[in-house]
């Protein structure tokens, strides 16, 4: 799971000299929130977001009506963009979790994907959410089970071998330490081709495992 496989290739790009009015129009037209700013050869020089295009009222308060019009019509992308090195980017070979961490740490909504200074794609929070949903099997029907297991080596293997021995398949899985209970983990699996009752029996019969939630999706 690398950034290059999940990024959006061919992002919508703008030039530094474009007026902010036009940039806003492009955002509305294509329903996107981030516009990488490039120079010749798709070299990344900045980033414009919807927030950046929102002109703070304070900067206009001292101007009269005519001055406001002129101010706005002269405002170009380069005047409002996040510039050059301040743009946080990622390489195409980074992992998805590294990208997610970077975005969470800096509290940003997108990462331009840059290779040798040239933009090759963009990864946004929506792309990550889509993959999160996919990881846990959203959009596929099956039985979704949450199992609380002791934090020991080999517990997950017990679950998979129990399911495999029955001839069922795990479509999606994920696990996190139980909140506020460091000694256990909560594991979510989505199982296909399995009757719900039988599946629970099989999982409950593993020593120390506790099925805490079952739902058919």
């Amino acid at each position: 799971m690398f950034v290059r496989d999940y990024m959006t290739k061919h992002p919508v790009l703008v030039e530094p000299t474009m007026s902010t009015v036009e940039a806003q129009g492009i955002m509305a037209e294509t329903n996107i929130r981030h516009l990488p700013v490039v120079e010749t050869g798709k070299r990344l020089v900045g980033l414009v977001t919807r927030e950046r295009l929102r002109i703070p009222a304070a900067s206009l308060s001292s101007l009269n009506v005519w001055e406001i019009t002129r101010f706005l019509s002269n405002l170009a992308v380069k005047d409002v963009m996040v510039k050059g090195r301040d743009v946080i980017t990622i390489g195409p070979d980074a992992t998805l979790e590294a990208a997610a961490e970077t975005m969470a740490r800096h509290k940003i909504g997108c990462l331009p994907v840059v290779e040798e200074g040239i933009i090759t794609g963009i990864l946004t929070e929506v792309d990550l959410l889509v993959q999160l949903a996919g990881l846990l099997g959203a959009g596929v029907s099956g039985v979704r089970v949450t199992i609380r297991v002791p934090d020991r080596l080999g517990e997950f293997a017990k679950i998979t071998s129990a399911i495999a021995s029955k001839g069922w398949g795990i479509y999606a899985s994920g696990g996190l330490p139980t909140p506020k209970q460091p000694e256990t983990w909560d594991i979510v699996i989505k199982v296909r081709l399995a009757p719900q009752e039988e599946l629970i029996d099989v999982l409950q019969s593993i020593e120390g495992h506790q099925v805490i939630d079952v739902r058919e999706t």
Partner: protein
Amino acid sequence: MTADIRQHSPILKLEDVAISYETRYGDVEAVRQVSFDVHRATTFGVVGESGCGKSTVAFGIVDFLGANGKIVDGSIKFQGRELVGRSQAELRKLRGDQIAMVYQDPMQALNPSVTIGDQLAEVLTTHRGLAKNEARQKSIDMLSRVYMPDAANVMKRYPHQISGGQQQRVVIAMALLNNPALLIMDEPTTALDVTVEAVVLDLIEDLKRDFDTAIVYITHDLGVVARVCNYVGVMYAGEMVETGSVEAIYDDPQHPYTQGLMRCVPKLGTTKESSRLYPIRGRVPAPKDRPKGACIFAPRCDYATDKCHTEHPLLREIQNGHRARCFYSEVIDPEAWEPPEGLVPEIAPAPETEEALIRVSDLRTYYEQESRSVLSLVGLGKKQYVKAVDEVSFSIPRGKTLGVVGESGCGKSTLAKTIVGLEAPTGGEAQFLGFDVTVPLSNRDLKLIQELQMVFQNPDSTMNPSYTVGHQITRPLERFRTVPKASAYDEVIRLLNAVRLDGSYYHRLPRQLSGGEKQRVGIARAFASRPELVLCDEPVSALDVSVQAAVLNLLMEIQREYGTTMMFIAHDLSVVRFFSDYVAVMYLGHVVEIGPAEDIYAPPYMPYTEALLSAVPIPDPTAEQKHIRLEGTVPSALNPPSGCVFHTRCPRRAEMLPDGGRICEVEKPPWQHNTEEHRIYCHIPLEELRKLDPVVTEV
């Protein structure tokens, strides 16, 4: 995989685009009300006959319309950005960075005096400002990416030193160097051989998947569309008449024009009886003659009512994104369509005869080539020969048709020229009606010339532009004294009528005729001397599908009427199947398989025939076709491979013969007889070849 729930906006969005050209008669609207979207990693195919405005749309997207063309209405949005009204400077930047184009003739896109490496690297040094070395390395990578054999070496060559298919790959590589979001391809494979075309189409599919590129693919070939496109827009006379997914359009065409197109394309894999072609009557109107305030297709439509002639239909949704510009889409049932009176002639089966009209055995035509050694200057050099036709034997029964197929450079045309006398054979025998046809044309009996006529590929270059149609057809009549001089005029009119042209064409000049009409005149001229044998060299490959169907039907009808024997040269295997009683497959001057048409299209196949068949684009997205691709190009005829001429590219010998098929390299294969008439030139035993599955299986 889960479906992508993100909603990406289209890369390219056209809305109600109208494009006009300024002419002496005022502005002529070439294209109007064209709307479509192209999304990332999908191919949108634009199909239609010539003169329907397909290329105008493609050029319009990047405003390459020339000095007299202009976009008069509508909007073209690329990545949310309006392109209409942009300055040329801004567009040039976009074209370099984010939009790329590939055109029909690769030789016109490449500079003949600059090496391929320099041309590719220039893209990167100019647009990306890369250093030369780096640009070079990236170019080599990209050449390998488009499956160019020996990429590093190709960089040093000039465009004329590589084959047409490789040239087109260079152009595609060049287009992709900047990783464009949108790729516009205008008939990129039309000039290529069917086997090369298949490889390039596979490449386009791979690139679309790997680069997420949105592709606008313009073509007249419904088979190609079925193979590469996800969505299709059918254009007719400057309007989009139907759009939808490729499956929907082929499975359930909603517009009468689309239905008509489907009926006039020859289909591979069907029986000869069911592969009848139904042309669309009339022809595409010129832009200034298009009906105004009415359905543009109404004059040619079998379902037209008064409403169609007085009201202009809108492109409206029929179901699930499938749109058609017709009032009666829901009412029309294409299954119930019956050809109107006189559209297709009744064609009786050819009479059964055993008598062979022409018998050719061991015919060879070599071209002498001077050796480059110094000795040749004093006449001591060893002579080299291009073996254009080698060891060819066949016979055609009276009244039947022999189809000859093969890639370009296989000697198909040389064979025809040798028989007709334009080339002198080097050896072998050819008997026709008791005449020896190995004598050169100038020594031939007038009677023989009269009995042997030819229809050429390009009607433009075979007619004298300053003579009227009547004059051109009268000439053979006078020369051969087919009819008394006094009734020559009546005979010309009769011939014109036979090719479905009325008497008014007598006084017209070739430039006043459409391509299909010119080809009809060419046919009338060939039949004027009432020949016994007519050689047709690619007679329909320059024509649009609906015209092609009409010309083919006409040829067949005349053939039956006069009992003429024909040799029909074509590269399109589906056309040959429909038209021929016998088929000969040629490779590098040799006939490698010959037999009745039905036998050629079913196992056992000669491996080359199998590869040719699996390369033919089939106008049916659901048909299953074997995936066999030939490596490389046809070897040079100057130095043909030893043993079996096909062994260098044969995909079967390694797996089906012991010892990896060593025998093919050293020994000439035997003629194996499947039936008395069907023979195959191959080392692989017939029992093994029979086990192969048919190439095309219809679902």
